[in-house]
């Protein structure tokens, strides 16, 4: 569970984005965060993943306070997909992208290879393993980032506008990926303004506007 308790946050030299916000994201539901641009959706997502730390109040990810735990450890709990996948692609080949972190952490090569192979297969990237990530389409880049994060086996995944720039067929593939992750028991919070996508997957719907949660709904239940 990700829980926000009396969270207030502002950017450096900026106005308050959130004040005394309380929210719980449960693992068994796909939560969508919707609302107008500039209303604080991305900020909320980053707070939930521990990328931003609240000035007051706290964010607990499975009872770990994001202010106290190093990012590297939070990464084993929660994954975050930026709107631009290019922002988090680091390596020269698809295979290395998934594996380099394991190597940096000195995971034994055999174990690392097994994990990478499994992730490649799960996210339909095996045929692209030797390519440069820059050669991939946007949808493939996204799956690559998700695959690379999944080797850490996080319990939660936060996705920021994952359908941006995807056509219908690629959106359908993404839908499959999301359903697969839910079957694995991974909780998800998805920021989106894509209405058909929201309707298809939302099990909890949080509407954020002007720094406030204006509505929490449970569609399809």
């Amino acid at each position, binding site marked *: 569970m990700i829980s926000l308790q009396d969270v207030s946050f502002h950017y450096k030299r900026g106005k308050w984005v959130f004040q005394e916000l309380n929210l719980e994201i449960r693992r068994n539901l796909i939560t969508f965060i919707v609302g*107008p*641009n*500039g209303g604080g959706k991305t900020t909320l997502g980053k707070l939930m993943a521990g990328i931003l730390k609240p000035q007051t109040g706290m964010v607990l990810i499975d009872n770990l306070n994001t202010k106290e735990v190093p990012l590297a450890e939070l990464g084993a709990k929660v994954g975050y997909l930026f709107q631009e996948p290019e922002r988090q692609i680091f390596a020269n080949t698809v295979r290395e992208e998934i594996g380099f972190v394991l190597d940096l952490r000195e995971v034994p090569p055999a174990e690392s290879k097994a994990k990478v192979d499994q992730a490649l297969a799960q996210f339909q990237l095996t045929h692209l393993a030797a390519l440069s990530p820059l050669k991939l*389409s*946007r*949808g493939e880049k996204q799956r690559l980032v998700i695959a690379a994060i999944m080797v850490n086996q996080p319990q939660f995944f936060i996705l920021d506008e994952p359908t*941006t*720039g*995807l*056509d*219908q*067929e*690629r959106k359908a593939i993404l839908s499959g990926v999301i359903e697969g992750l839910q079957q694995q028991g991974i909780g998800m919070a998805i920021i989106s*303004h*894509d*209405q*058909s996508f929201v309707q298809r997957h939302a099990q909890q719907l949080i509407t954020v506007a002007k720094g406030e949660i204006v509505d929490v709904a449970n569609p399809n239940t």
Partner: protein
Amino acid sequence: MSLPILVKDLSFQYENDATQILRHLNLAVAKGEIVAVVGLSGIGKSTLCYCLSGLIPHVYGGMMEGEVLLQGQNTKELSLAAIATTLGIVFQNPDHQLFSFNVEDELAFGPENLCVPRAEIARRIEEVLAKVGMQDYRDASPQQLSGGQRQLIAMAAVLTLQPEILIFDEAMSQIDADGKAMLKAMMLRLKEEGKTMVMIEHDLDNLQIADRVLVLREGQLSPYTGSLS
């Protein structure tokens, strides 16, 4: 009078590719018409945009055959600066097309490049800002605006060059529902003024303002009947 956009037997192949991405493509767009082009990603929609706007062959290299005529003039023979007063293009990402410190500078940029007199630039800015309803944001930095407002400014920045044709290259893909509504309303107003528009779209929900919807596949355009592939 010649058509705003006439594409005759256009083929294009990128230098590093083995196959042609556009093959003997034909397109005629009448004055005041809004034509939407849909298709899968990577199918050549952006390439088509580049061809229509003269970026191919002027900026991007490759093998281009056939011709693109804007108001009867071949893009190969026009300079990009000449094209800019005929055709304006709004791209997908507002952050990659707005570069000035404030809205006023952004709108002045185009006419400044063409050495339009200062008084005339000021008049055009006034007029265009009123048209897009952004008079109050003249001194705002683009970063202070919402995604939809930024796209309106990107469009306004093109309109100060007074083009007759506008191309929207997935211009609505990164903005929220309000922003989309704003942009669509603006496009309909421009249509009333007789501007000609081509919009490349991913999102089928945005097609209702189009007079015609075409699908791009296998390098050619055909009427859209509900399937992309």
